[in-house]
């Protein structure tokens, strides 16, 4: 079995609270192990030290995108963040994900994030039915490559937490939803691409992005929402100058 790595436990400061209870830091001592993630640390506290600590996870392996938190001020998937990577002087700080309402302690309400996903027309608009065959699509075509670039987004909201435009503008759709719209815009199976451009040109649309790029820097999946949003801006501008939608 894995050994406790050192005598001294790490000091873990957790930001706790929620609506009705102002957020306050609380520090715990947690034994340090080899191969230990931040999610393990938070779980250790709940399972051994303070049973009322709230947080969220599901898959444990970076697939579901429900365990993101602020770790030392940085938004991260906690299940895929090795403690050794973030330990500073034997301590770490964990807080709820930024830019979303806190439900309790480390668990945030992700509904605004998904409402915006829907608002950005972030869903397939069919051109075929289940009675038709599968559309033949050249995987190397330029459009498909653009669509493929952002498809592995797991909607973890890390980019959303990293973006200062989201922080300042509650209407802003945010990097992930806009990236999804760009993916669909380039998907040749998707109907009525014009409606996607309409959906991202509204009061919280892609034009509010200041290309600050924190989304791209912090996306744990190495996706590039900045580029996707730039793609949307250029598509809308092209349409403005009278070029047809593809």
């Amino acid at each position, binding site marked *: 079995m894995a050994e406790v790595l050192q005598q001294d436990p790490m000091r873990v400061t957790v930001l706790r609270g929620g609506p009705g209870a102002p957020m306050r830091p609380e520090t715990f001592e947690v034994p340090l192990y080899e191969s230990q993630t931040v999610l*393990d640390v938070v779980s250790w506290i709940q*399972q051994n030290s303070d*049973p009322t600590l709230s947080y969220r996870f599901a898959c444990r392996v970076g697939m579901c995108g429900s365990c993101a938190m602020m770790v030392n001020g940085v938004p991260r998937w906690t299940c895929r963040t090795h403690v050794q990577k973030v330990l500073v002087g034997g301590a770490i700080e964990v807080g709820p994900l930024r830019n979303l309402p806190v439900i309790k302690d480390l668990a945030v309400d992700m509904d605004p994030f998904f409402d915006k*996903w829907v608002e950005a027309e972030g869903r*397939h608009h069919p051109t075929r039915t*289940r009675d038709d065959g599968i559309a*033949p699509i050249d*995987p190397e075509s330029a459009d498909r490559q653009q669509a493929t670039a952002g498809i592995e987004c797991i909607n973890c909201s890390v980019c959303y937490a990293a973006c200062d435009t989201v922080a300042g503008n509650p209407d802003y759709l945010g990097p992930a939803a806009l990236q999804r719209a760009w993916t669909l815009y380039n998907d040749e*199976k998707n109907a009525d691409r014009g409606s996607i451009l309409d959906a991202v040109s509204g009061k919280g649309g892609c034009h509010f992005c200041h290309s600050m790029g924190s989304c791209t820097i912090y996306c744990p999946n190495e996706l590039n929402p900045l580029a996707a949003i730039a793609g949307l801006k250029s598509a809308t501008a092209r349409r403005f100058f009278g070029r047809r939608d593809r």
Partner: protein
Amino acid sequence: MISTQHIDRHDTDVLILGAGGAGLFSALHALQGAPEGTKVTLAVKGLIGKSGCTRMVQGGYNVALGPGDSVERHFMDTILGGKWLPDQDMAWRLCEQAVVRVRELENEIGCFFDRNPDGTLHHKAFAGQTADRTVHKGDLTGIEIINRLMEQVLARPVEKLQEHRAIGLIPTADGAALAGVLMIDMRTGRFRFVRAKTVLMATGGGPTMYKYHTPSGDKSMDGLAMALRAGLPLRDMEMVQFHPTGLLAGDHTRMTGTVLEEGLRGAGGRLLNHSGQRFMFDYDPKGERATRDVVSRGIYAEMRKNNNPEQEGVFISMAHLGPANVAQKFKGMVKRCADCGFDLAGGLVEVVPTAHYFMGGVVVDVDTRTAMEGLYVAGEDAGGAHGSNRLGGNGVANSTVFGGIAGDTMAADIRGMGALRDPDEAVLEAELARACHPLSRPPALVLPLRKALQEAMWDEVGVMRSEAGLKRGLARIAGISEALMDVGVAADNLAFNLTWHDWLNLRSLCEISDVIARAALARDNSRGAHFREDFPSAGDLAESYFTVSRRRGGDVDVVREPVRFTIVRPGETILPEGEPDTLVAAL
């Protein structure tokens, strides 16, 4: 004390429990098929689109669309893989409808599965298949399926009850039909009773009562435990599939048990024992490429030989294939290991068989109806389609196919249903009391008991079983269940109280663990995932039976029922004469 006075009451028409492939598909189909104005409610223990295992599907989705493949061939593979135990009508429905469902996923839901250079769908062959049949999106197929489904559901008028945990199926006073479901709004800690004309249970099973397990943390057999308490018959409950290569990283980390993908062995990955020797050829001529159950037993046997608590597992080694090559071919897997501190491409990673999938489940008909009016079951909660073993790629096919069917069926059945039914208040009260049990006990840690159950199941009811072991297992489970009743949870703040839910998880797991052990005792032969060291032979195929477990009074009884060979009999095939046994080129 919390009483039924404290329950929020809520009504809907169609209630769906769970938001995996089965739950989400049923929501879409119910909306498509039900009369105008029908209210559809989705209640889920986690977040929509984020919880459950459908999202974690890596390998892909089996569908007979590949070159030369046919529904008949897919069906035969499923029956042979299930060692003649599947319900043949369900298996047929699965294979036949998978074709429609994949087209629906691609064309209506918006999934994009990998293509060949000529633009057609790419198919690969999972172990145990005789054709290239598995469609996939890289090795993140589940993310593509669930993200696309989730978008469609979120954009439609579905009532969302997220982080609502179902805790009890509440029948009508006469017990003839289901009235509704009791749940906990986990965010507030309040109870809510939802009446519905039809309820789909799609909570996804999840054998997380084993020391090593792959499913997501929200799955804890709640659905099957509820069904058991409601007196429904459960079949094939002894059938727990182990994946041979789960990560072993210590019992302090949630990474332990998570899957290292099948493709690693397929590509030539080697398994080495504690002394650095390859061993799989001692167990099977296919070596590391043998089927999951065989490799799992091989590893288990090596572990037992070594019997060293300091170094429990075996190792997977990829380096001989060239670390750079491995890092490129298995990018996601290598990165995942690296994030957690392991070098998969160049070093050794310790692995162990890990409980992966639960073949057993509620007895249903081919339209997902159960013995209780108003209750439907689909996905991993339903038994029958896989028999004793699920083929890789048939899991997500099963949940999406039968989820859609459940939606259609509920939409049709609801037309003939009158008013909402009233619950049996006595059952409601009993379920409430069950959930509140720990709140009036002195608080203690839940974790040690969870670990104890996981050890007991791994030791006695795991990869290899015997009568003596299973009996020991039953005694250990009973002891843990009893101890759990003395573990309390502080009741001062029930909002998002994970510890209370840990307690409830463990309660469900104990209830179902007991059934698994009993069903395993009742099967005195070895089929698929179920291996009895004291009965290693498969028994007479023509006399195949499946187990049905059911709670009557306080006790669970297990009976054997003969498999009905409605489509094909052992020794026969439905493939046309002259069809080759396999279309997959031997490696």
